């Protein structure tokens, strides 16, 4: 009956998310990421940080959401939007939440983490961070998640990842020296929004994320955590 369909508009299944082979077994579909958790990203802005429109360095974590339309199977081709010559390839390790985290203390934060996953976050390149830039960051299929691994006490300040484009190593990064290391980030985010089992919280994309053009294969790997490969395609 039409009426009942209306009252229970079904949530669209989040396609392409891999099932973890540990509890919580399922990802929720929430993908949350901090902006500028790499000190080099803020340093690169130089004096602009203190000038309008920013006027000061961010104090609380600045976050963005990759909504469900962005989630695609890890290997699916990524089409360029019309008129966009290249996409920025951001890569980050994400915390896979295992327990509900609401206002957790930094010292307890990592006890709420069940796993780690490699995530790629594709965006239209932009150099203004005043507005949320949703049209540049919420493109269909612009977020891919590699199968998560269990969190068993890995040193989250010692993770390394790299990006190869067209078979060439173009970017290498580590989680050392983040403005907010994993536990501090989770504590500060959970101060105002509760994270639930299966939610993903990225540690943040490193400064200098490379660009990829149509026809180029992109390969991303985080040592001990995962890898994913997909091609960039011309606009449909």
């Amino acid at each position: 009956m039409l009426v009942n369909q209306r009252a229970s508009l079904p949530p669209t299944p989040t396609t392409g998310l891999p099932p973890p082979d540990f509890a919580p077994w399922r990802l929720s579909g929430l993908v949350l990421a901090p902006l500028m958790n790499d000190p080099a990203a803020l340093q690169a802005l130089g004096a602009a940080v203190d000038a309008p429109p920013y006027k000061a360095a961010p104090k609380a974590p600045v976050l963005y959401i990759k909504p469900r339309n962005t989630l695609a199977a890890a290997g699916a081709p990524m089409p360029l939007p019309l008129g966009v010559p290249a996409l920025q390839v951001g890569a980050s390790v994400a915390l896979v939440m295992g327990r509900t985290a609401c206002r957790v203390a930094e010292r307890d934060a990592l006890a709420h983490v069940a796993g780690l996953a490699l995530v790629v976050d594709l965006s239209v390149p932009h150099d203004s961070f005043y507005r949320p830039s949703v049209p540049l960051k919420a493109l269909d299929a612009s977020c891919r998640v590699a199968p998560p691994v269990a969190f068993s006490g890995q040193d989250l300040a010692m993770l390394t990842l790299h990006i190869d484009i067209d078979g060439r190593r173009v970017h290498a990064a580590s989680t050392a020296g983040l403005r907010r290391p994993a536990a501090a980030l989770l504590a500060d985010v959970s101060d105002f929004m509760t994270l639930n089992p299966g939610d993903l919280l990225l540690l943040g994309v490193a400064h200098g994320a490379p660009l990829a053009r149509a026809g180029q294969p992109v390969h991303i790997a985080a040592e001990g955590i995962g890898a994913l490969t997909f091609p960039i395609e011309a606009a449909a």
Partner: protein
Amino acid sequence: MKTARVAYGGAIHTAYPHATGLQLADGRVLREEDVVWLPPFEPGTVIALGLNYADHVAELARELHSTAAAEPLVFLKSAGALIGHRGHTRRPSDAAFMHYECELAVVIGRPAKGVKAAGAMQHVAGYTVANDYAVRDYLENWYRPNLRVKNRDGGTALGPWLVDTADVADPHALALSTRVNGTLTQQGSTANMVHRVPQLIEYLSAFMTLEPGDVILTGTPEGVVNVNPGDEVVCEIEGIGRLHNTLLPDSLFGITA
């Protein structure tokens, strides 16, 4: 047709308006205060508009860097921010200025990608009322409005009813109002939106596929004032519904100063 989702007697039910309150799909008639009201549909992506009423832009002009509204100001929220009618929202004690925002919420009913404004309304399932709180003390100029301002647990109320598109002749001819403890504090009309619903769907669906259950909160008119713990805030949109919310102090959440 108006429908709600409510929790009652250990289950979640579809409910309909009734002269004495509401009626569950199974026939039981209940009073409004006997059920727990959930957002009236299962929410997908929550898309919100800032500065989408000319009068509200004027109200904030002193702190804005630009009054130009060539492109909609869009931000996203997560499902954890959502609560239903007669819900409770925490009012943090360290903030000087937290305000409500009464907004027309547009619920998508059919997938939309690359849709033009002329055909956009076919993708709308219906409307409900939103109260999208903001804590202005936490504003920072990075991805503004940042999530700490606009994506707090329980900071966005939706409901009570999802009203079918067919029952709303013109979504841009509806009076909006907010009352705090019975005093009228905000008044406006959806006629004054800068970017209208069909244009918003065209704009959004150009870069993202909208799916059933996705919801667009279309912004608020002028008249936002500070609210305090204990205040009851009622947001009303003509023909759509009257959404109640109560602000609670930190102390009830185990937070000590």
